[in-house]
């Protein structure tokens, strides 16, 4: 594997660790199987790329992408809590709606960002190669996101969110408005995911309508890989595990794609992901069965 491919995989892995944190928040903390992320990831990319191509400051455009993601997540939450639509279906409805919305936002199937400024340009210097600069900046962003998420989950509201996911009846008995907490949690989760999408568009040179396909599976794969590497119940370790899971996962995918003898190509990515997630889900179950 070339250095270019190596750092490229790390870069994408770091972007997807934001998605993984988002999926961890919805699937594990809230225990809400939220499929909205397949739509909010390209939503973040679409909003950010469109605004930048309109001449917006890349930081402001990225912030708007974050907010757009929050809105999408809140919508899923409202469909579930307010209108009592089943959790999976609520996410699918918003995901499908976002496909059209993303096309509307971009006005065409893709918005390239080749010559436009990005958040990465702001840190460009003579000394550092672009190939290394982008992963370095992303690493700072991901660590900041992790530390903020850790702090949030230890706050009063964060505690209420964890209780809502694990034991909603008890949470209500302790005065937690569980419905509102679900809406806030999904908003936060999808905001993180859209932030990932915005950074992905800026690092990969544009937004594309089909870039969201399989986001949820990749995020879930990262969470599962991370969880199987670290057996800890402590939050600080879990969020770190999820990030490492995302990077490792991307790294191995790159490795598989680069090994010419296997004959895999880029379009096989989703198939590989599905197979890997299936294996990751089945292996612990088999191990448990053998033990008992």
């Amino acid at each position: 594997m070339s250095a270019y491919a190596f750092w490229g995989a790390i870069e994408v892995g770091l972007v997807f660790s934001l998605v993984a944190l988002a999926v961890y928040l919805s699937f594990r903390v809230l225990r809400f199987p939220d499929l909205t992320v397949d739509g909010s990831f390209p939503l973040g990319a679409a909003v950010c790329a469109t605004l930048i191509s309109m001449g917006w400051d890349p930081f402001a455009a990225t912030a708007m992408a974050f907010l757009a993601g929050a809105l999408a997540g809140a919508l899923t939450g409202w469909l579930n809590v307010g209108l009592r639509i089943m959790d999976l279906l609520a996410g699918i409805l918003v995901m499908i709606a976002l496909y059209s919305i993303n096309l509307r936002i971009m006005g065409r199937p893709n918005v390239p960002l080749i010559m436009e400024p990005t958040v990465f340009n702001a840190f460009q210097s003579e000394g550092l190669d672009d190939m290394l600069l982008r992963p370095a900046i992303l690493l700072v962003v991901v660590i900041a996101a992790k530390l903020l998420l850790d702090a949030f989950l230890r706050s009063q509201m964060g505690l209420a969110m964890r209780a809502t996911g694990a034991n909603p009846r008890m949470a209500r008995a302790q005065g937690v408005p569980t419905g509102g907490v679900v809406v806030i949690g999904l908003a936060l989760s999808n905001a993180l995911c859209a932030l990932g999408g915005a950074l992905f568009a800026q690092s990969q040179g544009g937004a594309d309508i089909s870039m969201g396909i399989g986001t949820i599976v990749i995020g879930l794969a990262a969470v599962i890989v991370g969880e199987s590497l670290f057996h800890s119940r402590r939050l600080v370790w879990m969020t770190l595990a999820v990030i490492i899971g995302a990077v490792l996962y991307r790294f191995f995918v790159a490795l598989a794609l680069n090994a010419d003898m296997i004959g895999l190509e880029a379009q096989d990515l989703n198939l590989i992901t599905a197979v890997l997630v299936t294996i990751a889900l089945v292996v612990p179950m088999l191990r448990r069965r053998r033990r008992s």
Partner: protein
Amino acid sequence: MLTLKDLRVVFNAGTPIQNVALDGLALHVPAGQFVTVIGSNGAGKSTLLNAISGEVTLDEGSIQIDGMEMAGLSAWRRAGHVARVFQDPLAGTCEDLSIEENLALADARGQRRGLGRAVRRERREEYREQLRLLDLGLEDRLEDPIGLLSGGQRQSVSLLMAALRPSRILLLDEHTAALDPRTADYVLALTRKLVKDKGLTTLMVTHSMRQALEIGDRLVMLHRGKVALDVAEPANKGLGVPDLLEMFQRVRAEAISDDALLLD
């Protein structure tokens, strides 16, 4: 003070499996009184507690706590006034959270929850003090996930959580039923101590007549969603389980003859 008027709860109304769980139940509990509630399966004990805490919506009637109307308020809004311990020891605590986080969650009951740190240092000392009262060695395990504790230990922590913040009403839903006899006795003794120390107005549902006779200031028996029997100071009257059974038989016979009259 708790005032219940004409509580009516019907499950699956208008269907063949319609079930009238509460049928015009009325009860007035003065502040600080400890009431034990007994009754056979389906008498409406659990529905009564669920109705007071807001998990079940009333079809008719009024629930007043210190003169404030609760009917129509959602469960989480009532939590500032009503504390609750469930029958299942796993239901009252959150197993992914540490012991101190569970206590912190209860510490914010009925208050706005913001982005401030949940487990504050000065409160942690208070949690440690409270846990020391249990005498289970939990004061040294504040950061352990509560899922590592036994059912009895978790139920004891649930009780502490219910009594941590001042609330007007404490609801105990067969909270010793899932424990082994020795642990159940321990949790019961703890219950009496907490209720006495904090002067809590308490409603305790129990399946054990002996328990109902021994503790509390007043015994209430439910039958078919109504108060069938209301005995003040049962312990002082020297009532035994056979007396209670006899009273129950009499009440049930009356109920049956009522039905028979209706059929005529």
